[in-house]
């Protein structure tokens, strides 16, 4: 692994090593570009991943508090943990379910397709689907996504059989084991999935794609990557010319360090990306770096989630097998006759006893709650993931709560739009019907507490600099050598789980950055 000097101003500094940052590190280094990759967390491995859910959660999760407000359930149930984010090398690609559907053509034209909707700040993406599709192809091949490019699907687990039987009875046409970045066969030097379940605790066979053991080691092998763990970026600095020139961070010992930079890519997930840019306010950028438009942190989207747990008459043993290998595509369409715009995916999901009790079942205690838990072996579960609508006042901002270094933490405010509420009601009802059609004697619905894991929109791409933070390449409208390389740049969230799109955009952005560097534009 390379080690670059603090005053080496030829390096690109990337903040965050997840889907966006980790991919970017590989893409830049393989083109010969020197990269310093700052990761706030430690480096785990397939060997060190714990198989005790409680321990694994602590190993991978960003545990420092945040704060939240608004009428979303999170502000009541887990106000100091509005989002479930990772703080470890590989970021959320360590704990994700690896569900990798594409956004659909019409979803990228949300403002046009949905029309003017009161209380929203909808825009169209500044990228056409045909353009994005080229990078979806590359990303799917990079991640070895199942059911794409000739790669077989994952086999049907018990939990999936329940979803599938119900889906077919309801007349759904497109139900299958999903588009997953999990090896259905040995490839990429990684094993095939052995159906162990514990995807969320970190995949101990590396069958599930994570930058931790794919992009990052490959970047290290180029000799161009300087990965600095336990290095928490606190400020991005700029020169008199308005271009960024250094990133200040705290190292493992709490010491402040300053790494000079030719360009900076921020990929800390919408929460930390927004926070870092706001913390980097200056005389020239009084509202925060890259925020002359006052759009930074606004339009925060987190998807409409809802869980449905079915109690069947016979054992399912849902914990056996890949955590999320099941998908129904039929509801991903814009049909305002359903009472809302936009679409949602129905996804199979597995839980261990603690997780189902805390996250998937409706809040409860006493005889009824314990009685439901007593049926754990007979449970099957589904979740819905749908498009929420951007609103200018749903935003990430700086909190009055401070972290261990005395810096304000991220605050998330969300008031749900009536469309989100109507979509959740519909999605939960459909999930319930699927489980009942498969024979469930009881179905329990919950909002999908405690927290959001998909975070988007806070530095959105726009052609018009007044409407967003970044241009169609994720490049700051204000600062040409500052890039956002995570889900913050999504112009609208669409319904798809975001990681594949984050990777596709990172592949595209890396090409652009390399060309800009060759052209000496940055």
């Amino acid at each position, binding site marked *: 692994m390379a080690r670059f000097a603090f005053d080496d101003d030829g390096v690109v500094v990337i903040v965050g090593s997840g889907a966006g940052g980790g991919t970017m590190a590989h893409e830049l280094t393989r083109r010969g570009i020197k990269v310093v990759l700052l990761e706030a967390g430690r480096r785990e491995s397939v060997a060190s991943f714990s198989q*005790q859910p*409680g321990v694994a959660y602590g190993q991978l999760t960003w545990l420092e508090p945040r704060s939240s407000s608004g009428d979303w359930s999170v502000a009541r149930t887990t106000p100091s943990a509005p989002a479930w984010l990772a703080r470890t090398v590989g970021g959320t690609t360590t704990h994700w379910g690896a569900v990798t559907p594409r956004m659909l053509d019409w979803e990228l034209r949300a403002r046009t397709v949905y029309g003017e909707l009161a209380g929203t700040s909808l825009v169209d993406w500044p990228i056409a689907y045909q353009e994005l599709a080229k990078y979806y192809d590359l990303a799917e091949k990079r991640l070895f996504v199942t059911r794409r490019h000739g790669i077989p699907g994952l086999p049907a687990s018990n939990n999936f*059989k329940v979803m599938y039987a119900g889906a077919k009875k309801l007349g759904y046409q497109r139900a299958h084991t999903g588009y997953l970045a999990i090896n259905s*066969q040995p490839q990429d030097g990684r094993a*095939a999935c052995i159906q162990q379940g514990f995807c969320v605790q970190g995949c101990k066979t590396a069958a599930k794609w994570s930058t931790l053991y794919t992009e990052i080691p490959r970047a290290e092998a180029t000799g161009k990557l300087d990965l600095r763990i336990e290095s928490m970026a606190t400020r991005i600095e700029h020169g008199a010319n308005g271009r960024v020139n250094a990133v200040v961070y705290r190292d493992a010992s709490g010491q402040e360090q300053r790494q000079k930079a030719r360009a900076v890519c921020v990929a800390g997930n919408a929460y930390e990306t927004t926070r870092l840019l706001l913390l980097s306010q200056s005389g020239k950028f009084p509202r925060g770096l890259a925020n002359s438009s006052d759009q930074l942190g606004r339009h925060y989207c987190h998807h409409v989630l809802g869980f449905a747990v079915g109690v069947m008459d016979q054992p399912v043993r849902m914990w*056996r097998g890949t955590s999320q290998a099941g998908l129904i595509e039929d509801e991903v369409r814009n049909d305002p006759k359903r009472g809302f715009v936009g679409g949602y995916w129905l996804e199979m999901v597995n839980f261990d006893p603690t997780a189902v009790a805390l996250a998937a079942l409706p809040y409860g205690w*006493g005889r009824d709650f314990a009685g439901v838990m007593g049926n754990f072996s007979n449970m099957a579960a589904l979740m819905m993931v749908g498009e929420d609508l951007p609103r200018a006042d749903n935003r990430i901002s700086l909190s009055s709560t401070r972290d261990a270094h005395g810096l304000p933490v991220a605050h998330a405010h969300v008031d749900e739009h009536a469309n989100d509420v109507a979509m959740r009601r519909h999605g939960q009802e459909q999930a319930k019907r699927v489980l009942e059609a498969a*024979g469930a004697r009881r179905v329990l619905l919950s909002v999908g507490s405690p927290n959001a894991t998909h975070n988007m929109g806070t530095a959105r791409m726009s052609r018009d600099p007044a409407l967003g933070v970044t241009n169609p390449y994720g490049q700051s409208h204000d600062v040409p050598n500052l890039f956002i390389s995570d889900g913050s740049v999504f112009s609208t969230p669409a319904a798809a789980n975001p990681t594949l799109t984050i990777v596709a955009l990172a592949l595209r952005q890396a090409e652009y950055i390399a060309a800009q560097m060759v052209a000496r534009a940055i």
Partner: protein
Amino acid sequence: MSACESAERRVFLKTTGVLTGVLALGSPLALLAPSRSWALDLTALTSEQGRVLLAAARTLLPHDRLEDVAYAAVVNSADQDAARDAELKKSLTEGIAALGKGFADADEPTRIAALGKLEPTPFFQQLRVRSIQVLYATPLAHALLGYEGEAFSKGGYLARGFNDLRWLPEVPLVDAGPVPGAGS
């Protein structure tokens, strides 16, 4: 399991109380333990406070076939945290007092009523989350629920029943995929 401390360890702990019980005859733990009686040393809570918390945990998550020693794990977790966190100790002490005298020995409706009154408090909410996190992670609860836990050490569930459900139709290959190593 952690709730059953050895005699030597008890000597070194400055204890504030002790929680005791007897394993059921058919308990899976009874096969392994040297004796059927168990004891949990408390280092922040009193014996009576421990009994109240155990009864509260059982009232929150009542599984009649689950032995007290499983619920004692919840008490152990709260006690250990309280030994390090004065604020938590205060919250537990106040919450336990608010449950009223005789809570531990009261009948279930009385316990439900007493707990229900505290439902809006942080004491209740934290105890509910802690009870779920700790109780449902115990081997005894796993045995009760039929949960088999991690499978990496055994080669995953690939050859251990991930697709053994037979009471619904099989899924056509076109909507699923081949089982690795099974031909097809």
